[in-house]
């Protein structure tokens, strides 16, 4: 039930932002379509803790802020490499271990690695992530494991 409510709230927000028309008729259409989509998802049985990770509601925003800062810093680093040319990069492939307990946590970790420039996750098996890093520093940063710890904390 909580998942249905959360999905409805998200969809309603999306509709309200994208529509911009707030006449009773259109609001009625919103309610109808949101309810039918929520019902459809409910009967398809795709609403669970994995598609609507409600247990992360309070821990995720803080992590996203930190990730956002990392993304900006790393972007500047990659832009510097671009301007400095090929001699400034030393691509390497490393394997990092994900210590998260749930599949969702590992996926968040792998996607965060991809989102942070300088590192891209190539492959995932069990809890080992194969990562292609653009520079040695990016690889060292990742091997330091701060991101891993933070994702673990998000998972709670």
């Amino acid at each position, binding site marked *: 039930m909580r998942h249905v409510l959360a999905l409805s709230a998200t969809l309603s927000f*999306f509709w309200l*932002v*994208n529509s*911009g028309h707030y006449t009773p008729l259109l609001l009625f259409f919103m309610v109808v379509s949101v309810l039918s989509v929520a019902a459809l998802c409910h009967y398809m049985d795709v609403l669970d803790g994995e598609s609507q990770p409600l247990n992360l509601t309070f821990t995720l925003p803080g992590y996203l802020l930190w990730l956002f800062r990392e*993304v*900006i810093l*790393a*972007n500047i680093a*990659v*832009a510097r*490499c*671009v*301007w400095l*040319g*090929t*001699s400034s*990069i*030393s*691509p*390497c*492939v490393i394997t990092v271990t994900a210590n998260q307990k749930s599949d969702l946590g590992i996926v968040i970790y792998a*996607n965060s690695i*991809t*989102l*942070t*420039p*300088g590192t*891209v*996750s*190539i*492959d995932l098996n069990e809890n080992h992530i194969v990562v*292609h890093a*653009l520079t040695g520093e990016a690889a060292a940063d990742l091997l330091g494991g701060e991101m891993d710890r933070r994702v673990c904390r998000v998972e709670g």
Partner: protein
Amino acid sequence: MTVSAVIFIVLGLFFFTGGSIGILRFPDFYSRLHPAGKLDSMGLLMTMAGMALYTLRDFSLPAIITALKIMLIVVLVFITSPTATHAILDAGVRAGLGPWTAPEKKVKE
């Protein structure tokens, strides 16, 4: 407001340019993906933030909604961009392209 909007957009264009140059400059498939996939989303974030600020010059409900829509674009791109990057990478790995592991460091000059 307009000034900060312009600053954001110019910063974003700087990242876009960096991304394009990186694609041309870097030596192999995998390292080219870094500027292609990420500097782009950074440039998008900057330019879109600039545009959102520009729309917010006259502070009204429609302006706020437009700004929110612009930021929703950024959120969607931040979700889809890693997915697309991973799809390209995976295609490379499946096709059997071995990643370059910094041989050019020694070969240089």
